[in-house]
């Protein structure tokens, strides 16, 4: 073992020894799982079976476990979920799916799936993740993918290959590459340099990322993340998978002196589509009936940015009351909320 690695493992082990971080998941039915309530695993499971509850908190109330020092809550969560997965029929719900389960309809379907799944070979599951790219004066967008085992001593990650596509506002293709990331390695790639800078204060595009593990393993830390680095501050967010068409809602406040709010729409569909943006929808005791409605045309796999501008009259009526913005899309589309300072030198970005 290399000297550096040994020092690292020593740090990990000494902390773990001190803190006793591991959870005992040997399911010995006589083991005490909550010392404060003197509760055995077998009693916990009996109560769970008797209550037939889906509510973890109801179970805690009944058994009094996990409510004194709370140190065992994490173990209790594990035992709760494990017991439910072992015997799902015990847990009632009045919904249709469970009624079908009780009639034995779904179990037979699941039984067939289980047999098929047990004989077919494993295939890497790598759904596309999306990242918006923002370019502007002194604004950088960076992609980060890490492949670390963190403090887990037993290696369960695998080397990965990330396939990265960068597309411009109009959906045109700018860059494509496959990058290998071995265990313990990190990928950092600046994305905004591929976009052309135009007169608009912000230019947008998108990155499409698929990550394949070399052999069956755990996902670990491989979820792609991105950062927007601006002149006076940074922000970051993880990448997301696809979503279907429909309405996306954001609740915001109109504060034109302190911030500018933008929507970024990434058309993840292979055909053009139009999106409708409407606001304000007041949350409480709505007094403003007139809505601003704007249509936005999105190219196939294109990305657009739209600023929510309330104007002076609406600003005066809204004051600082929160209101919602509705974004309606016809096809799959990722929508982000970008909140920047008036000078566009600091941002935060969020998604639905």
């Amino acid at each position, binding site marked *: 073992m290399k000297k550096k690695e040994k020092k690292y493992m020593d*740090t990990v082990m000494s902390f773990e020894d001190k*803190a*006793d971080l*591991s*959870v*005992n*998941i040997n399911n010995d039915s006589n083991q005490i799982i909550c010392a404060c309530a003197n509760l055995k695993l077998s009693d916990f499971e009996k109560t769970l079976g008797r209550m037939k509850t*889906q*509510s*973890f908190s109801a179970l805690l109330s009944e058994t009094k476990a996990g409510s*004194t*020092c*709370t140190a065992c*809550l*994490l173990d209790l969560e*594990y035992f709760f*979920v494990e017991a439910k997965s072992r015997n799902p029929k015990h847990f009632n719900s009045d*919904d249709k799916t469970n009624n079908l389960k009780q009639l034995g309809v779904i179990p037979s379907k699941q039984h067939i*799936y289980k047999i*098929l*799944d047990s004989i*077919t070979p*494993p295939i*890497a*599951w790598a759904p596309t993740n999306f990242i918006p790219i923002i370019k502007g004066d002194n604004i950088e967008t960076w992609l980060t993918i*890490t492949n*670390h085992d963190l*403090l887990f001593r*037993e290696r369960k990650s695998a080397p*990965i290959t990330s396939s990265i596509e960068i597309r411009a506002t109009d959906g045109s293709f700018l860059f494509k590459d496959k990058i290998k990331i071995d265990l313990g390695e*990190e990928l950092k790639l600046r994305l905004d340099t591929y976009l052309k800078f135009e007169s608009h204060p912000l230019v947008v595009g998108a990155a499409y990322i698929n990550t*394949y593990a070399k*052999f*069956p393993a*755990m996902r670990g*830390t*491989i*979820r792609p*993340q991105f*950062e927007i680095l601006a*002149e*006076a*501050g*940074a*922000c970051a967010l993880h990448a997301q998978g696809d979503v*279907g068409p429909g309405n996306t809602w954001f*609740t*915001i406040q109109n*504060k034109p002196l*302190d*911030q500018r709010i933008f929507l970024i729409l990434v058309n993840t*569909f292979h055909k053009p589509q139009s999106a409708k943006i409407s606001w304000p929808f007041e949350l*409480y005791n709505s007094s403003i009936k007139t809505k601003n409605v704007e249509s936005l045309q999105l190219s196939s796999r294109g990305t657009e940015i739209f600023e929510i501008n309330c104007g002076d009259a609406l600003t005066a009526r809204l004051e600082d009351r*929160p209101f919602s913005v509705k974004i309606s899309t016809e*096809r*799959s589309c990722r929508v982000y909320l970008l909140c920047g300072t008036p000078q566009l030198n*600091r*941002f*935060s*970005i969020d998604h639905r």
Partner: protein
Amino acid sequence: MIPSISSLPSGYDCLVASPFDKVCKNLLDGNGVVIQKISIFSEGKCIESLEQNHEFIDGDLIGGNSQPFIWKDQLEPGVSGYLENSFRIEDEKPLFRSNNVLPFYSIYSKPGKKSFFSDNAYLYASPPVISQIAEYGQYIDGYAVARVDRERDYGESIIFINPYRKPLKAEIITADHRSIERIRVPPHSSRLVSLKALLNQDEIRWSGQLQITATNRVITFSVKHSFCDPTIISDHEHLDPYRGEPTHFPATRWFRLRLGKWLMRRGWLT
């Protein structure tokens, strides 16, 4: 339903607009009296608590939505707290379809400052944490995009929220072997730990993967702020626990998932 936790960093008001449409959809037949309880904790004490009844009949909230909850920043400078938000049915009747936390954003604002948004965290029974514990029997949180830079005024802190009754000890360790040790978070308290301690004295910048481990479950958020003035916050995000989900699926399951995605993209499956 499982209560959720929102962070209350010092220097900002917090607006919580609870998603009553989602609460209603979670009722089995759209009927029931839901009791919402919001409690604010700081430094081991519950400093404010509010309980409201919301009656739903045939999918409609009677009397319309109530006003959003607004926490006006009133803690001592540098002292943070957290908000616990829970929904339960009157008389504990089993009327909810699911006990999952309803995700919503809180809006953080202050006159003269840009707002930021942040989502809520599970008080307990978080699905990624459960799958991590099931797979590894160990709880470790992580974050891949931590960054501190004296020159560009990029500061970052980790918020540790301990909503439980037992004090906890935590440690931040980076993938390149830096660490911040002996982080103590008393019960029902929140602590902001600046990552500038990861920089050596003459070092200008650092970025990389960090990992957090603790003696008990801890709720964490990353806050990106000015290096010189941590009260100017740009962004507030949840971290990413090590994922215990598989990278591969059996071919037949893979095909079902692909088909589901294909249908979902066209709006034929929700």
